[in-house]
């Protein structure tokens, strides 16, 4: 399914050339960095700035992708109400990336090359995020990975044009492992979704466990789209670990939770789910158990959250999920910060916007979290507050599913290995453009 608003008038080659010269003259020299064949300059003036929102609407992360989209659209609407950015309206287009890297590649290519999107945002699945990154890097298009939390996204798969907005597997592991080792036990079993996010997240957990003196006694790989977990749950019972650390996401974690709850296995060992996305638990709160990580919760006792939730609910009265969760929050924050960065840069030139983002600090109050956050200039990952939560035994309303049990400073949950793995290209090697 594809939606489009105010689709831009198609441009002739002559118009593009004229626009290029005018834009180059107006913006000084930045447009002419890099090899000629890589550079693009589109006609500007009152032309809207177009964003390509690469969101899953189907597949393992279909629900999360659409919640991500709701957050992005809210941010765009709020800017448009205020007159847009640099006097230009913000347009958006979206298409279903189907939780499928090949589809992600195809849609990213179309958004950039055919629909002239200046910026891409979206992805929950790390394979999709990485696929979009490859296309974005080819064109120099700035891409915001809003919700994929594989450590590799800000590690070996980082890119100068990509910014990663979610906490990653290592951040969550660092927040959770030490405490669990001390209080629960040293024999850990890993349940790992068999794709990039699962592997890199479990690798991060393993490293943290072993560093703290624990032992990984087995790692069961779970293929994507597994619906029957009985084999794994029998195996878990045979192995008898102290702690079961899961890196399972989307529809898979929903099915796993349901089956664990049905067997009342949640009390047989301590369960730690690296990160629990809100759309993956909404609708089945009775299957919530163990300890899990998140970056935000709509009932955190912080200023601004109630107003944000109200705005979100006003924008989406028919939403299948009645309140924003971490996924929609990330989509909103990422989009808002992109548009703010364009304002700070005073231009849509990608290199100027990248510079406006690198090292950018965001106050805790502005992000509605407990601690200040910043965009790590070495990895382009947003370093932010990491929360651990468990099922709320005393909910104040039907949306109050979580009890937040700890919040960790970004510095304490930092992914130390990422800067060593991430090699960001210098300006001269990034194709430049301005829309």
């Amino acid at each position, binding site marked *: 399914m594809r939606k489009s608003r105010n689709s831009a008038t198609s441009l002739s080659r002559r118009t593009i050339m004229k626009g290029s010269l005018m834009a180059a003259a107006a913006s000084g020299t930045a447009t002419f960095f890099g090899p000629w064949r890589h550079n693009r300059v589109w006609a500007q003036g009152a032309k809207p700035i177009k964003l390509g929102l690469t969101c899953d609407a*189907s*597949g393992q992360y*279909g*629900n999360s992708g*659409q919640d991500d989209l709701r957050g992005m659209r809210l941010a765009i609407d709020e800017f448009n109400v205020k007159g847009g950015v640099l006097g230009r309206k913000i347009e958006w287009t979206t298409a279903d990336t189907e939780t499928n890297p090949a589809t992600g590649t195809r849609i990213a290519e179309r958004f950039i090359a055919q629909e002239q999107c200046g910026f891409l945002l979206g992805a929950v699945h790390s394979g999709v995020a990485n696929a979009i990154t490859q296309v974005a890097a080819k064109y120099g298009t700035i891409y915001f990975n809003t919700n994929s939390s594989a450590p590799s996204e800000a590690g070996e798969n980082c890119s100068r044009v990509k910014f990663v907005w979610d906490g990653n597997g290592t951040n969550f592991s660092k927040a959770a492992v030490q405490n669990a080792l001390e209080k629960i036990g040293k024999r850990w079993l890993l349940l790992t979704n*068999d794709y990039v996010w699962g592997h890199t997240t479990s690798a991060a957990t393993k490293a943290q466990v072993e560093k703290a003196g624990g032992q990984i006694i087995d790692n*069961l*790989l*779970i*293929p*994507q*789209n*597994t*619906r*029957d977990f*009985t*084999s*794994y749950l*029998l*195996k878990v*019972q*045979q192995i008898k670990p102290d702690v079961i650390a899961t890196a399972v996401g989307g*529809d898979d974690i*929903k*099915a796993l939770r*349901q*089956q664990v709850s*049905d*067997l*009342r*296995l949640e009390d*047989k060992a301590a369960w730690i789910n690296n990160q629990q996305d809100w759309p993956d638990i*909404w*609708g*089945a709160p*009775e*299957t919530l158990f163990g300890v899990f990580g998140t970056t935000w919760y709509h009932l955190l006792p912080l200023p601004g959250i109630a107003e944000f939730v109200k705005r979100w609910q006003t924008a989406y009265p028919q939403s*299948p*999920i009645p309140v924003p969760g971490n996924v929609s929050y990330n989509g909103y924050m990422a989009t808002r910060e992109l548009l703010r960065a364009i304002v700070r840069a005073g231009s849509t030139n990608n290199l100027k916007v990248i510079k406006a983002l690198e090292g950018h600090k965001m106050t805790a109050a502005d992000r509605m979290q407990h601690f200040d956050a910043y965009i790590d200039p070495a990895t382009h990952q947003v370093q932010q507050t990491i929360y651990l939560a468990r099922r709320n035994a005393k909910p104040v309303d039907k949306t109050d599913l979580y009890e937040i049990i700890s919040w960790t400073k970004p510095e304490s949950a930092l992914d130390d290995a990422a800067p060593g793995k991430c090699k960001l290209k210098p300006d001269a090697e990034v194709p430049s453009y301005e829309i």
Partner: protein
Amino acid sequence: MGTLLNLLPHLVNGITLGLLFALIALGFMLILGLMEQINLAHGSLFALGAYFAYAICAPRLPLPPDVLGMWAAVPLGWRFAAAVVLAPILVAPFGLVLERLMRRTYGRDPLYGLLLTFGVAMVLEELIRMVWGTRDYILPVPREMSGGFIMLDLIWSTYRFWAAALAIVAMAGVWAIVERTRFGAMVKAGAHDSEIVQALGIDLTRLRVWVFVLGTMLAAFAGVVLAPLWGIRPHMGVDAVVPAFLIIVLGGVGSFWGAAIGGLLVGMVVGLSGAYASEWSMLSMYLLLIAVVTLRARGLFGKKSVLEV
């Protein structure tokens, strides 16, 4: 001895899983085997069954509040029993419409029927999204059927064994209809030689309608039975149609026992690989298929089909 004791739970799991796979494939087998039509909407009919069951059990029915209140007061066991019976009946009209749409594809290149049912599957999935939204649901199960019990020093899902028992009942019913009734004999004869059967004065069109409706109801029944295990979501049909298709090809098109044995084999392979080589558990069923069709192209119990022409 220790190894055997470790293996035994996974063998038991493989059998129960296999029965569930066979149940999913049953309706697909009936339509493909007796009508030689590939119904790719099978998964969506499976999903519809699960959603109707949820509407009956939860209950979320379009009824006046006082009537709905009375129905909600009925014990869950009765509501669940009603869902098992009524959901397939409610899905049956969808099968009727689909069969009517498919008539123009009979006797033509199988690709036409394939494309039509693929389109219908997409329409049905979208319809589900429009009516029930994109969120997930869990089908409530009576207390007596839910939870776990201890066997071989492990906790097992009680409902899983109930589901396996329901699968056996459904398979026995289909076997009796196809192998032990005049209706079954006529349908099989019609699939074998439609001209002769029509020459004998049997209304083959009406027979085909009944076969399609029966296949549809079986898909919906499988959806009801599997919903408490897999959860209910709009695209759950995809999770069903792929193994169903694979099992039919593996077991042999048109063979009841092929579907049953194929389902058990797939369940066993997926169950054992899940326990001992988890990264292969999803792939294992495809490897099994490759192995079988390499040795016997028509599957384990397959006979020559018009689809081969």
